[in-house]
């Protein structure tokens, strides 16, 4: 028996050892950059991070189209993975913040607030952030606003015509019983955008009016989607007539191949910023700062707007043509901190309201 135990120990040690060596091998690429940095500073000063690779977790449809421009400008290579912010937050929690990614790009701001409170984000106040409405940024610099994502409706014109219905114009219209069973909205517990809508309407209308509204809206909803992207998809495919969605370039793009149109609510427009942040665990902090600076600069913002049409965080970058229909005065006055603080209590009340839909 003793011999067995001894063998067991040897094998455990052998495994541990191989585990370590494998890890070092795969970690090498991220150690390399420092070498590259030293070699380069003597020659080209404009691209001090040539050869560095940044890993980016993306929840910003179309953002990848802008990465080449950034690489060309700075020499920093980008490896990216698209992951919903909810999934990213779960991953961060499971690995206790020790992610190998450097940058978090876009997605639901509530996850960023959560990650900030858990200490997973690196505070960095970019000099470029001064040109950005402070309402979009975290006040300690844990994240900054890249763009503004308004919420509205997507409608399937064919289905509406078939049912002899008009497209809803306001949030109030949406709760009209004539749309019963035709409205699709994502569960605010899962979709950051939809939580922003719920929280935004509460902030704009006050508790009483908002909850009364949600109660009536709930009657029109067959079931709540399990992801923010689902209403768009289902309305595009004609499974439902009306979807509550975040309006980005992608929302308009689906209209190229499907009989859909985008509707900005006429009464008021809830919104959420699409944030950007650095992970605390990053090994390339300086390069990550360059990344943030560039995406908040006028040049970076313009290129990002071309990659996916959105209203950018900087006022000196014009709204894309696609979004010209948006009346900015209808955007609600919105407190991000409040949205984060009330999340648990709002979602609990929401759950009581909708039951198991």
């Amino acid at each position, binding site marked *: 028996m003793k011999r067995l135990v001894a063998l067991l120990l040897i094998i455990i040690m052998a495994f541990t050892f191989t585990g370590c060596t494998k890890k070092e091998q795969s970690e090498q690429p991220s150690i390399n950059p420092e070498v590259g940095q030293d070699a380069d500073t003597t020659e080209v000063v404009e691209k001090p991070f040539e050869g560095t690779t940044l890993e980016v*977790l993306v929840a910003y449809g179309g953002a990848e189209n802008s990465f080449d421009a950034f690489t060309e400008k700075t020499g920093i290579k980008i490896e990216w993975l698209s992951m919903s912010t909810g999934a990213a937050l779960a991953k961060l929690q499971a690995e206790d913040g020790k992610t190998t990614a450097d940058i978090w790009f876009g997605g639901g701001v509530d996850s960023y607030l959560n990650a900030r409170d858990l200490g997973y984000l690196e505070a960095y106040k970019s000099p470029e952030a001064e040109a950005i409405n402070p309402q979009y940024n975290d006040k300690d610099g844990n994240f900054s606003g890249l763009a503004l994502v308004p919420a509205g409706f997507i409608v399937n014109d064919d289905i509406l015509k078939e049912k002899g219905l008009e497209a809803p114009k306001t949030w109030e219209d949406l709760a009209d019983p004539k749309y019963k069973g035709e409205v699709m909205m994502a569960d605010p517990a899962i979709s950051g955008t939809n939580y922003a809508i719920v929280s935004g309407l509460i902030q704009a209308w006050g508790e009483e009016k908002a909850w009364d509204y949600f109660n009536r809206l709930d009657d029109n909803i067959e079931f709540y989607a399990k992801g923010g992207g689902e209403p768009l998809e289902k309305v595009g*495919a004609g*499974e439902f007539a009306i979807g509550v969605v975040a309006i980005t370039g992608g929302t308009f793009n689906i209209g190229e191949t499907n009989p859909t149109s985008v509707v900005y609510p006429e009464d008021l427009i809830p919104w959420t910023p699409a944030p950007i942040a650095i992970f605390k665990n990053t090994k390339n902090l300086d390069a990550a700062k360059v990344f943030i600076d560039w995406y908040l600069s006028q040049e970076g913002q313009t290129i990002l707007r071309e990659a996916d049409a959105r209203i950018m965080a900087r006022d000196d970058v014009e709204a894309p043509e696609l979004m010209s229909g948006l009346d900015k005065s209808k955007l609600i006055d919105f407190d991000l901190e409040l949205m984060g603080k009330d999340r648990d209590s709002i979602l609990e009340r929401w759950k009581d309201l909708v039951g198991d839909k």
Partner: protein
Amino acid sequence: MINRSKLKERVDFSALSFDYVIDKLILFTVIISLLMFILYPIIMVISTSFYSKGVFTLDNYKDLLKNENIKLIKNSLFVSTLSSILGTFFALIISLFTFLQRERLKKIILKSLMITMISPPFVSALALILLFGRRGLITYNLLGLSVNPYGWKGIVLLQTLGQVSLASMMLISTLDSIDNRQILASRDLGASPMSTLINVILPASFPGIMSVLFLQFTINLADFGTPIIIGGRFKVLATEAYMKIFSSGDLGKAAAMSVLLIPPAIIAFYFYRKNMTKLNNLSSGTKAVGGDNYDFNLPFGIRCILSFITGLFFLLMILKYGNIFLSAISINSSGSLKFTLKHFKEVRFGYLPSIYRSIVFAISSGIISSIIGILLSYYTHRRELPFMKYIEFISSLPYIIPGIFFGLGYIVAFNNEPLLLTGTTLIVILNNTFRHISVANKAANAYFTTMNSKIEDAARDLGASRTRILMTIIFPLLKPTFLTSFINTFTACMTTVGAIIFLVSPRNVVSSIVMFKDISNGQYGLGAVMASILIVITVSVNLIAIKLLSKERA
């Protein structure tokens, strides 16, 4: 049957010989790797439900059995039971149909079933929604119906369809293993084909049918992908546990919920194993040679039903795959179909590394998991070491718990020195390898329980060491088993999403994840391109392996 215990005494092994050490080394490598890469991560993920901010607590379990969750359990049990019964029923019909065909057609059906098993998750469900949904190509455009597929009926339909291929393949091999002397005897004694079917064939394959039923039940119970897409307001436990991770970011609560899934799964798995053992005992007899050409004509009506249902199943599969391929090369623009290469153009070079990685990962996982699976089976069923059956049970755990928790377990377990693996390529390969080890194990079990050990005994009598027997006799003889389990693991790895969704990072993303991303962003066309590429690669690898396999047998 020769008395094995006596055989073991035949050769005296000196306790410290080189051979002994190597043998034990292999054994312990197998055991330790299974403990470390299966049991440890699972324990780690479950343990998150007992700790909140580093303090032991039962908070997560306090209201686990509240009404809401009881309802989820009921829903889960309801759909899983119904889907498994229906799935087994249809699989039985298809396998009976196949069983009665001539060798040639049988082979074609088997190959087709194998292809229909390559079913990228999400894409299959979406393809069926596009066919049968409210605006479905068939329901709406062809039949003018507007059906609402969301709800338990949709889940049952998709799960049933999804399981039929695997179940049919298992049942065909069960039917094939029936001693056909029994069937011949029954016919010779004047029983009609119909009564032979009812009184001989069905009873003989009953344990096989039951084990297929229970296996499907465990798989359906852990399935979260189908209910997410088609469940609508009908919620099941696996899906809610999965959603809990995203909605509250609360790993502990989600882990506690998934713990609820484990007892029914273990019970079902117990019955599966019990029936498998019975089956092995029943089919251990040798087969009559040349008894294949007996006349076996079932009544016309029964034959019609069998072929109609088999035909319907394959028609649905053709529609499903046709729809995936079609979506890859077309745009469905307001009801009219336009062909385009747009999606292929959009699948840029950025996608190539992920395809390459997928193939490399799937090949490595396929090889490692087949080797370990075979060794595990060897030590459990050939050497019959007493504690090995517990180790074997551990190896089947990843099949029982939802894939996503197996993935999360890896993150929780391997994010610290000295086992820092998160973010590496290795963690994805390891996860794939150990998740599918029971496939290889089961394939090898079939070999070790049916083939007797005469050759090995002879070699041992002639003085061959255990290592030598393993290397020069067992592995060469097991080549077909190895190939089968390699195909299965390879196929599963190419399409897996749930278990590795949290394990991939930007540097090791694989194509199934890219496909999942495209689909969840609503870019079904792009997703269909990726799915088509995955299907084509997997089918080619399968066909190559089948070629190698038939050469081996010839």
